């Protein structure tokens, strides 16, 4: 039924309402309420020109979250994206510098770097059978250490404004919004791409792999390659996020720090189940917006900055607990959800892992 809603979501108003009231899609409800709170605390924020700025700001983390989505539904983790963003930001800063003409070649290089990182993550975890949590943790350390080593802890300077305008500038005199940021357009493109890919055989196979990799192996799917592609999507999304961030904020090795956790949290808020097999890319997108909206509410409400982490922690747990418990209510039988598993679907022994479905005969 969830999937039924998924397939048709957005196609008709009635259905989208159905999505919002569906307990497992609580994220949309939460998002709407948070936005309402923002508008209430600061009516000016509701003006299109202001609101589009908010969207622009969320774009990088939203894109990152959608990338993370593909890794998570396949039952894996990608902890390396934050560090990869830092790398990309610094690469842009140091290689483009003030010479705009270098933008295109460096862009190509950045995407290449991203793909290589994803490829390594994917191959090491799928072929060498190292849990992705470990691989990407190692990759995170390598990338961070590397970027600090190369840059001596600080970039030489910001890249040319022309390059930065991708994340900073936009189309002037755009109807309604005044300025339509490029970042928003990039976000829209990425969203369309992501939701398309996730409904393609690739996307469906990926989710099924997250559910039961052994079955996919016996069904003739290239499990290792499909998963590797997921990691490459994730690291590409990190690259795009990096490009937007270097534009939006400029160069600093600390850009992207902790984004891996934000992205995973956002995806989970959006109904993606860690361990794989369940999730909806638009849910993940909504999760990212929810999280950022939450931060904004906290800013507007003058909650002391030191308390923000606490509120964030509570919201995350509450939201995830709610959807977990409600899903569980629907599945009636609390199978292994009492002991959640890390994304280790691949290594879980087929039989004991599959003991967990209710058989009604």
């Amino acid at each position, binding site marked *: *039924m969830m*999937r*039924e809603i998924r397939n048709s979501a957005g196609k008709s108003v009635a259905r989208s309402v159905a999505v919002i009231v569906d307990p497992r899609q609580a994220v949309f409800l939460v998002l709407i309420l948070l936005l309402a709170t923002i508008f209430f605390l600061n009516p000016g924020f509701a003006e299109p020109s202001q609101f589009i700025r908010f969207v622009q700001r969320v774009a990088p983390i939203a894109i990152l979250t959608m990338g993370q989505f593909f890794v998570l539904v396949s039952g894996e983790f990608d902890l390396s994206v934050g560090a990869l963003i830092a790398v990309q930001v610094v690469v842009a800063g140091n290689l483009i510098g003030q010479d705009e003409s270098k933008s295109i070649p460096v862009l190509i290089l950045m995407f290449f770097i991203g793909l290589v990182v994803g490829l390594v993550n994917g191959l090491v975890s799928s072929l060498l059978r190292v849990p992705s949590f470990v691989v990407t943790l190692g990759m995170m350390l390598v990338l961070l250490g590397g970027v600090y080593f190369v840059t001596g802890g600080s970039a030489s300077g910001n890249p040319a404004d022309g390059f930065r305008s991708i994340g900073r500038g936009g189309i002037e005199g755009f109807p309604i919004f005044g300025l339509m940021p490029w970042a928003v357009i990039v976000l829209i493109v990425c969203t369309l791409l992501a939701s398309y890919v996730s409904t*393609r*055989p*690739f996307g*469906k*196979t990926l*989710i*099924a792999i997250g*559910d*039961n990799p*052994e*079955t*996919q*192996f*016996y*069904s*003739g*799917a*290239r499990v290792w390659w499909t998963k590797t592609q997921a990691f490459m999507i994730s690291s590409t999304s990190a690259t795009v996020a990096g490009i937007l961030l270097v534009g939006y904020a400029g160069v600093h090795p600390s850009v992207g720090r902790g984004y891996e956790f934000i992205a995973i949290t956002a995806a989970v808020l959006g109904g993606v189940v860690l361990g794989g*097999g*369940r999730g909806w890319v638009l849910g993940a997108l909504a999760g990212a917006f929810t999280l950022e909206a939450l931060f904004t509410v906290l800013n507007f409400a003058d909650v002391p900055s030191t308390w923000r982490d606490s509120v964030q922690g509570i919201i995350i747990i509450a939201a995830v607990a709610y959807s977990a418990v409600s899903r569980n209510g*629907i599945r*009636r039988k609390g199978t292994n959800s009492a002991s959640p598993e890390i994304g280790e679907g691949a290594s879980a*022994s*087929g*039989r*004991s*892992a*599959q*003991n967990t*479905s*209710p*058989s*009604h*005969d």
Partner: protein
Amino acid sequence: MVDAILRADAVSKSFSGVEVLSEVSIALMPGSVHGLVGENGAGKSTLMKIFAGVYRADRGSVWLDGKHIDFGHPLEAMKAGLATVFQEFNLLPDRTVAENIYLGREPQKFGFVNSKKMVADTGAVMAELGIDFISPSSRVSSLSVAEQQIVEIIKALSFDARVISMDEPTAALADHEVQLLQSVIARLKSRGVGILYVSHRLNEVFDICDAVSVLKDGKLVWDGLIEEITQPEMVRLMVGRPIDAFFPPVLEGTTIGQTRLEIFEGGNEFVDSINLSVKSGEIVGIAGLQGAGRTEVVEAIFGAVPFSRGLIHIDGVETSIRNPRQAVKAGIALVTEDRKAQGLALEQSILDNALLTVRGAHPSRTRGARRDAPGVLSSLEVNSTNLGQEIQFLSGGNQQKVVLSKWLLTNPRIVILDEPTRGIDVGAKVAVYTLMRELALKGVAILMVSSELPEVIGMSDRIVVMREGRLQQGLGPQADEAQILTLATGTIALTAEGEKS
């Protein structure tokens, strides 16, 4: 007359609004074996799980030794002397046999686990049952499927239970192991233990049960002594329609054509010198004991654990199959022995499962398959209201039908079925057999592995028997069980098991 040791009075149970048990009453006498039969979805397992304390009855009451019981937890049931052998394997691969058997009630000394005693006691129980081929301290992951099933049963016995309910205990067992189990059951009967016995193998039910209850759609449709009912009558009660021919005959116009699949001297670390051929339109049955290497052969052909020696020819062309993907591309389909672990993605919808293989191996054909899927599914009578439903909520029979659809949508030239009817109801079995005949008619080459000798004999055009990883000589369709067993067991029974322990 003696009182029932276990009695259910008008027990009812519903899941998400669907009533799977309504007003069911049965009485189990001490020292008797009480059969519980019915199609999948009839409510057998649910009833057992209520006895076992896994579920609570919505209405009605359960009485053990005349005491009203309402277990909130499996442990309470076991402690009360009501042990259950579940259909799925409930063992921890990373733990030893003894640790598995005493899980949750490890013997203690000064508050600490007494491992010595644990191993000793396990050994004792096994000795009592004459099981010498499993070591109490070996890891479960190192045991064969049958051995694991036996450990399951030992586990239940190790509670000196007064009632033991067994859900499909022989599903994974080869015939000689079934006999072993039956001797165990006889011993338990003589001790006055009451046994609740769920099985789809009707011969078995008639062999060992004293009384039987037939369930259909959650209701008790027949209850009485085994002498009072005949097998066809029982089938009629279960499926609601008479099944005249249990094994459908070869369809009109089926012709056995060219050799489709041929293996020369195939071998790897599990099997050796495999020479096997299947012609188009032909159904070849592979018989043999558990652990004789049957599954290993089909997994080798399918590339899951590929041959490291020998050649595979398909339609006379040498074909290299290093992994399942290459097999699928070559037009081979494998309906695996373990449906849930290797055949399905349980949290995905019926439709997504039916499209698994196409999406995974032939993405370009997805659009077409997406169109055909509903037709194929309904042709197999997958009785499910909407294809968006998660497959884990379907009965075993329907799940198996979805697995078959998943393969049919790839239009295979060679179909391999490994224990295709394990743990599924009579109706579904017939559907599988019929499908096999239809595929044969279409000229598909079919290779079937089965532990149920009647099935092998009833369906095969040709039978090959495996023992200790090698093929014995082939037999014609007229082979009888005795011939097969002699080939399968060799001179001494249990050799296959013996040398594995």
